[in-house]
C-alpha cells in the first residue's frame, strides 16, 4: 500500500530564512512524487514533481525538492522564505506501477512565515 507521512503539522520560519517541509513515503514500486500548495479557501495548486532523472527538482515560486531513494524522502525546500509562502503544503505519491492512477496525499504541513 502507498502512504505518505508529513511529520510536522506546522513549520514556523522567519522571512528571509531557509525553509524545509519534510515528507517521507512508502510505495511497493518506484514513485512519482509531488508537492502541492493550498492557500486559504482555495483548491490545491501544483508546485513540483519528481518523475525520474536528477534528484533535485525545481518548481514554482523558487521551491525545490530533493528525492532521496535510500531515505524514501522528498523534502520541500526554499533558500529564502517569503511571508506570501504561508500556506498549507501537501506531499503526494503515486506508485508508477499501480493499476490505478490516484495520488495518495499526506496530512499536510502548515507553513507560517513571520515578517
Amino acid at each position, binding site marked *: 500500500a502507498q502512504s505518505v507521512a508529513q511529520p510536522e503539522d506546522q513549520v514556523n520560519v522567519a522571512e528571509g530564512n531557509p525553509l524545509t517541509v519534510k515528507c517521507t513515503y512508502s510505495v511497493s514500486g518506484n514513485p*512519482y512524487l*509531488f508537492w*502541492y500548495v493550498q492557500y486559504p*479557501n*482555495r*483548491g*490545491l*495548486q*501544483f508546485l513540483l*514533481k519528481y*518523475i525520474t532523472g536528477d534528484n533535485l527538482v525545481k518548481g514554482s515560486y523558487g521551491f525545490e525538492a530533493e528525492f532521496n531513494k535510500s531515505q524514501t524522502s522528498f523534502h520541500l525546500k526554499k533558500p529564502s522564505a517569503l511571508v506570501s509562502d504561508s500556506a498549507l503544503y*501537501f506531499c*503526494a505519491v*503515486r506508485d508508477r506501477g499501480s*493499476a*490505478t*492512477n*490516484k*495520488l*495518495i*496525499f*499526506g*496530512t*499536510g504541513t502548515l507553513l507560517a512565515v513571520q515578517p
Partner: protein
Amino acid sequence: GAGVSQSPSNKVTEKGKDVELRCDPISGHTALYWYRQSLGQGLEFLIYFQGNSAPDKSGLPSDRFSAERTGGSVSTLTIQRTQQEDSAVYLCASSSPEGTVNTGELFFGEGSRLTVL
C-alpha cells in the same frame, strides 16, 4: 473550460437530506478524481474515473456515497441521508490522458464545502 469547476461552492444541509456535488473537469481530461478534505485529515481519496467508468472506488466511505460520470466529462458525487461527519470540503481533480509523457499531475477545483447541521 480553463480550469476544473465545482458547484456549489458552499452547501449547508440538514442531517438526513441528500446532496449532489458537481464537477466539470478541464476539457479533454479523461481522468477525474474526487477527494475529501476534513480538518486534520489531509486529503482522503474517494473515487477515480477513467472516462465514464470507475476502476477505483475504494475510498467511498459507505454505501450512502455514490458518483457517476457521463459523456466522459461532468461528474456528480451524491451523498444520501447526510450525517454530520460528512461535513468536509469535497475536491475534484482531473488529469490529461495517460501517455508516455503524462505523469499524473492533477488539476484541482476549488472545492465544495459541505456543512451538515
